[in-house]
């Protein structure tokens, strides 16, 4: 018997056909989850409407009279629903928010603070990261989301992915949502996110390999560290297995 056959045989031979789960509990939790999703759907719609209302003003302010017309590609808005499982810890950090919801009629919220130039270029456009204001119903401590966008020469900015917290505080210490390329943007989006705290290094792990992120402090709040992974070292969209932050002394935060 080859090793593979032995492995297959062992995986089947150790099955326990008598395994019983508490289906009443499964259905009870499932109903609760369904309700939370409905509420989240309603909340997301509210947020999208709010953003649309704000951005009309922002778009004028951002572009200015005579500025180039908005880019053809509409800026998507990603609104993460509340954690949907019984294991909130697993949901929290390394999982990206769901694929962006693309809205064709939505201008761009005005960035908060300075754009961070990643150094990555897509033709003539540069990959940039920036915070934008968001509001999540019932979550007063969530007011910012981190966007990955492209800026063409001359200024027009196109948002590809926006990630934001959907509960708790967007300034709580530690990692927040991670943004992964979802294949929906014309250019691959390098994996990105932010950490709150005195981090000097952000190190991701994938397939047992360590990858250093590039980091920059947010101009608006120096406690916030924006990070992104060079696409040469981490393929956009590839999920991280782990991530840590270290301070200037190399201590894990």
């Amino acid at each position, binding site marked *: 018997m080859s090793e*593979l056959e032995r492995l297959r045989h062992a*995986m089947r031979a150790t099955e326990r056909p008598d395994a019983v789960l508490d*289906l009443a509990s499964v259905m009870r*939790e499932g109903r609760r*989850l369904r309700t939370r*999703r409905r509420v989240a759907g309603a909340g997301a719609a509210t947020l999208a409407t709010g953003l649309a209302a704000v951005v009309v003003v922002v778009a004028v302010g951002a572009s200015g009279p005579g500025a180039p017309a908005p880019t053809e590609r509409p800026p998507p808005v990603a609104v993460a629903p509340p954690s949907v499982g*019984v294991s909130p810890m697993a949901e929290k950090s*390394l999982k990206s928010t769901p694929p962006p919801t693309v809205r064709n009629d939505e201008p761009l919220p005005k960035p908060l603070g300075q754009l961070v130039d990643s150094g990555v270029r897509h033709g003539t456009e540069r990959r940039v990261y920036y915070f934008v204001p968001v509001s999540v119903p019932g979550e007063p401590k969530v007011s910012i989301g981190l966007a990955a966008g492209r800026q063409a020469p001359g200024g027009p900015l196109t948002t590809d992915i926006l990630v934001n917290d959907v509960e708790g505080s967007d300034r709580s210490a530690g990692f927040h949502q991670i943004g992964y390329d979802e294949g929906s943007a014309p250019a691959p989006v390098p994996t990105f996110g932010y950490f709150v705290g005195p981090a000097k290094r952000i190190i991701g792990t994938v*397939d047992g390999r360590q990858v250093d992120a590039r980091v920059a402090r947010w101009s608006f709040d120096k406690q916030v560290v924006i990070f992104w992974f060079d696409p040469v070292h981490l393929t956009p969209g590839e999920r991280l297995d*782990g991530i840590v932050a270290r301070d200037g002394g190399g201590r894990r935060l």
Partner: protein
Amino acid sequence: MARGDADFVEFARAASARLTHAAFLMTGDHHQAEDAAQTALVRTYASWSRIHDDDAYGYARRTLVNHLVDGWRRPMREYPTDEVPEQRREDVADDVATRRWLIAILGALSPRERAIVILRYYFDLPEAQVARELSVSVGTVKSTSSRALEKLRSATPRMADEEARR
């Protein structure tokens, strides 16, 4: 009980043992496995009206595997190797040896390798489907499978020696 609920119960009864065992193969821990299978079924039930005519089992399997892979990302967890197997009177020695071998051999793999091995060789999914379910490229599935099998091959003689010494 509504018709949809009755369908779900029938589905869950048929699928739960296999889902739980897959979760055990991924975690090496019966309690974690039951929790994970339960979570997958909760999410499946929450989406039941939209998936029950489609591929409910595939949905539950994808949910289970991604839930476990996500769970490993933070915090990183150790893969237990001292699991005490369920004792049965018949073939206890064989059962214990097989389970011990299996746990040790899977424990030598990274979480991603383990997920790929289980989807490929326990669920017998083709490479392209494994790639879709884990949101990775087919090339990643091929190279990871190959690396995982290489680890299995190199681990087996070592384990055989350890068994012989017992």
